[in-house]
């Protein structure tokens, strides 16, 4: 941390106030560059005031909301949470590329929650338009949704949106800081700024002399920041796009990395939670006499959904929580998976139609009298089960609340802490810590709310509330269960009709309702990954049906697409088989979007595609998805062994526009595919007595190392827009695997997890 002391003697020095004024002017000026002024809504779209200015001391410069320079060091504000996907390092490298500095020499600070760091992309990405549609209406409405995100101050990390949202802002911040430092140096020595260069954290003079950025901090604070900067074209990048070392890699390889769960504070207490295994209701009565007798137990606290125990270490808190004797209230949703599936099936009714965002040709006429192919598909509830169980540490003081946790929604936490304790939002300090995974779970902040409740019972003492793995599994907001009924027809060796009804509870209503506000209009997540695919099937319809919520649900790595892509591609594969044509060639025939075609062609070349038949006892499958703004094609090879099916090789081709960090990009592609494959193979949450039966990793495994195939990946950079890679490769993994299993065994798998029907080695 580069906190520079706020010396009261210097605070009244007139110099200190002046730059603050000019900084604000700059920020408003730069809004036209970063935000784009539209609809005359200038007051909404202008960039909010730079939050770094509030705490700035004299002689310190916060040239943009992302870069702070003092005499003792440089800090980058990297507002998107790193939940394991490497975005911390990527954000730092984006700024550093333009600022000409080694990001390893800079302090990285996630910053405090602030509207300036809103994620506008995520809001506009959830709209009911084809992602490839750049027509006037979609563009305008996308802009509007970005505006809504700014107004509601939704600062969050998700939807693979970080790179798309930030890559220009951060490079612009680096360039603005660089040019302002040059102006400051030019002013001090009376030479033109154009004659100066920058390198390695220093301004370089024509005669070779150098001066460190930090030495220029005081001067930079006094000059008008330079905002009219051009970003360097990719040909001039020195580090971006090349193989470079992830900033946190040494810490994560040596054990030095600290996560939320590792926080240790003086006089800290430790808490565990015992919540109703059913959702949305609490207890009728409890007896804590045994629990309170356990050594080290301080207090038993009533919290949302249940009880918590505060003790002198985590283990004792766990044991005491387990020793509570509680009678739980009964939730008001169906008790078992069987009943829940019936609710979903029953929701397939005309009056539950939520959207029909794809309706090409005349499906009804095309299917009338045709030899109709039909099938039903299912995807189960799934837990996130990040390896670090959820936890948060909170200190409640009379006029201040401090929170230490890993989160993707910092503004929601700040607001909740202020509301619960009655302190002003400005008196909430949030330390966003590295996460041991998330996969969408940390888009909810229920665990932080609970930790605040616990800490409020012991004011003045910091308390770390840690969920046991069992609590983490029981109190997840799982991926919704989802089903589809599909009908289609082929003619003359071509797919001519495809009609998909996809049925699920509304994730948008459930999640947005908990964390922000329920957005108006249809829930595109019910149909995402199905309605928005670039196929030109002559008669092509996708209808979304909104089912009752049943249990509260959450975003899970590639929401919507993780289920719909399976339904869509698996059914397309059935149609292509009925047409008797090659799965790759037929997909290429049906797709005209050049970016999508290129990834299909690339994956075909990589695996020397020659059809699904690759020899006796083996099979090759293919699937394509346009997921989270990235076209991805995957090919999977499997072999039937005497111990079950083995996945041998997986080929992935994707196009994310620009690859800033190729090493991390490859890790995201393979990680997302392993996520998709592993859960399709063996994971589900099944409910009995209102709660999931799967309580720990023995019953919820995902892929293990011995099952991991060889990966072959290729990233293209020809897509028109930049997109993130945390999620896209998940979507086509399950259907490609199902397709390979069909090629090897002749068995169609229409329901996940596949190990209900076949064995895996």
């Amino acid at each position: 941390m580069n906190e520079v002391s706020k010396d009261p003697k210097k605070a009244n020095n007139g110099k200190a106030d002046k730059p603050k004024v000019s900084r604000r002017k700059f920020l408003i000026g730069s809004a036209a560059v970063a935000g784009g002024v539209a609809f005359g809504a200038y007051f909404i779209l202008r960039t909010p005031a730079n939050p770094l200015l509030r705490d700035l001391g004299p002689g310190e410069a916060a040239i943009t909301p992302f870069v702070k320079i003092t005499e003792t060091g440089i800090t980058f504000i990297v507002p998107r949470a790193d939940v394991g996907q490497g975005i911390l390092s990527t954000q730092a490298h984006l700024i550093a590329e333009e600022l000409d500095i080694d990001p390893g020499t800079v302090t990285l600070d996630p910053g405090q929650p602030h509207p300036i760091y809103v994620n506008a992309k995520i809001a506009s990405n959830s709209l009911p338009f084809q992602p490839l549609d750049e027509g006037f209406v979609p563009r305008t409405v996308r802009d509007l949704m970005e505006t809504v995100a700014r107004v509601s101050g939704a600062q969050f990390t998700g939807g693979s949106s970080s790179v798309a949202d930030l890559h220009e802002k951060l490079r612009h911040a680096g360039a603005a800081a660089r040019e302002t430092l040059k102006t400051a140096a030019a002013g001090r020595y009376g030479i033109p700024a154009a004659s100066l260069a920058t390198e390695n954290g220093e301004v370089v003079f024509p005669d070779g002399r150098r001066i460190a950025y930090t030495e220029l901090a005081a001067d930079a604070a006094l000059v008008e920041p330079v905002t009219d900067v051009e970003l360097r074209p990719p040909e001039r990048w020195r580090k971006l796009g090349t193989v470079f070392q992830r900033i946190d890699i040494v810490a994560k390889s040596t054990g030095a990395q600290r996560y939320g769960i590792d926080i240790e504070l003086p006089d800290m207490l430790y808490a565990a939670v015992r919540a109703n295994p059913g959702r949305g209701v609490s207890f009728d009565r409890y007896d804590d006499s045994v629990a309170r007798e356990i050594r080290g137990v301080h207090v038993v606290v009533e919290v949302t959904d249940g009880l918590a125990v505060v003790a002198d270490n985590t283990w004792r808190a766990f044991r005491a929580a387990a020793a509570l004797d509680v009678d739980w209230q009964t939730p008001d949703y169906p008790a078992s998976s069987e009943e829940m599936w019936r609710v979903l099936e029953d929701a397939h009714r005309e009056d539950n139609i939520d959207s029909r965002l794809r309706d090409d040709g005349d499906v009804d006429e095309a299917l009338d009298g045709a030899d109709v192919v039909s099938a039903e598909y299912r995807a189960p509830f799934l837990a996130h089960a990040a390896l670090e169980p959820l936890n948060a540490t909170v200190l409640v003081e009379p006029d201040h609340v401090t929170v230490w946790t890993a989160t993707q929604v910092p503004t929601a936490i700040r607001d909740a802490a202020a509301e619960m304790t009655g302190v002003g939002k400005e008196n909430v300090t949030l330390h966003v810590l590295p996460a041991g995974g998330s996969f969408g779970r940390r888009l909810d902040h229920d665990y932080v709310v609970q930790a605040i409740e616990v800490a409020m019972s012991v004011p003045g003492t910091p308390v770390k509330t840690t969920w046991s793995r069992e609590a983490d599994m029981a109190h997840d907001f799982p991926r919704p269960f989802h089903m589809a009924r599909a009908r289609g027809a082929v003619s003359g060796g071509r797919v001519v009709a495809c009609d998909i009804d996809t049925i699920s509870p509304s994730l948008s209503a459930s999640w947005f309702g908990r964390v922000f506000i329920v957005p108006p209009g249809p829930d595109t997540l019910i149909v995402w990954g199905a309605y928005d695919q670039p196929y030109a099937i002559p008669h092509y319809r996708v209808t979304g049906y909104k089912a009752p919520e049943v249990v509260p649900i959450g975003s899970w790595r590639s929401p919507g697409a993780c289920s719909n892509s399976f339904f869509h591609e698996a059914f397309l594969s059935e149609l292509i088989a009925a047409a008797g044509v090659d799965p790759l060639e037929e997909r290429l025939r049906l797709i005209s979007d050049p970016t999508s075609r290129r990834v299909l062609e690339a994956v075909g070349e990589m695996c020397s595609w020659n059809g699904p038949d690759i020899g006796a006892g083996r099979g090759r499958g293919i699937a394509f998805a346009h997921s989270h703004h990235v076209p991805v094609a995957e090919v999977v090879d499997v072999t039937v062994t005497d111990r079950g099916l083995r996945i041998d090789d997986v080929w992935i081709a994707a196009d994310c526009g620009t690859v800033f960090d190729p090493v991390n990009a490859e890790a995201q592609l393979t990680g997302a595919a392993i996520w998709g494959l592993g859960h399709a193979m063996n994971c589900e949450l099944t409910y009995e007595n209102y709660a999931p039966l799967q309580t720990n990793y023995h019953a919820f495994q995902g892929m293990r190392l011995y099952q991991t195939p060889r990966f072959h990946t290729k990233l293209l950079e020809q897509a028109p827009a930049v997109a993130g890679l945390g999620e896209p490769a998940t979507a086509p993994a399950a259907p490609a695997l199902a397709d390979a299993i069909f090629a090897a065994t002749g068995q169609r798998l229409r329901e996940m997890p596949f190990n209900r029907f076949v064995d895996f080695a």
Partner: protein
Amino acid sequence: MPLLWVLRDELGIKEPKYGCGIAQCGACTVHVGGSPVRSCQLPVGSVWSDVKTLSGLGAGGALHPLQTAWIEHQVAQCGYCQSGQIMQAADLLARNPNPSDADIDAAMSANLCRCGAYPRIRAAIKAAAASMRGGE
């Protein structure tokens, strides 16, 4: 009380992680008397020999070849499982300087990585094995 919680909450040694508490993930793996142990399962009273965690793995303050390979291959994503992974891999290489794919699968498959860093875990173990053999 299990060794894991004594290390983490009483001694402030945070490299071994809590992931499952029931010997299903390997995040808590440490060495006791040179052998890999799931510290969430071992009562502290039953610890029979010296305990070693990741930061003590390298000889004389240097990085262990596995740590170097983990850095070079940029294995970690969230990194939460990696302390356990490296401790487990160190035991494999101590017993078997030239592990085959099947040996690696057998030794490492009880260590869960929810991020799916498995391909690089494999590659890094092979690289570390090669460098350790070269250095002998």
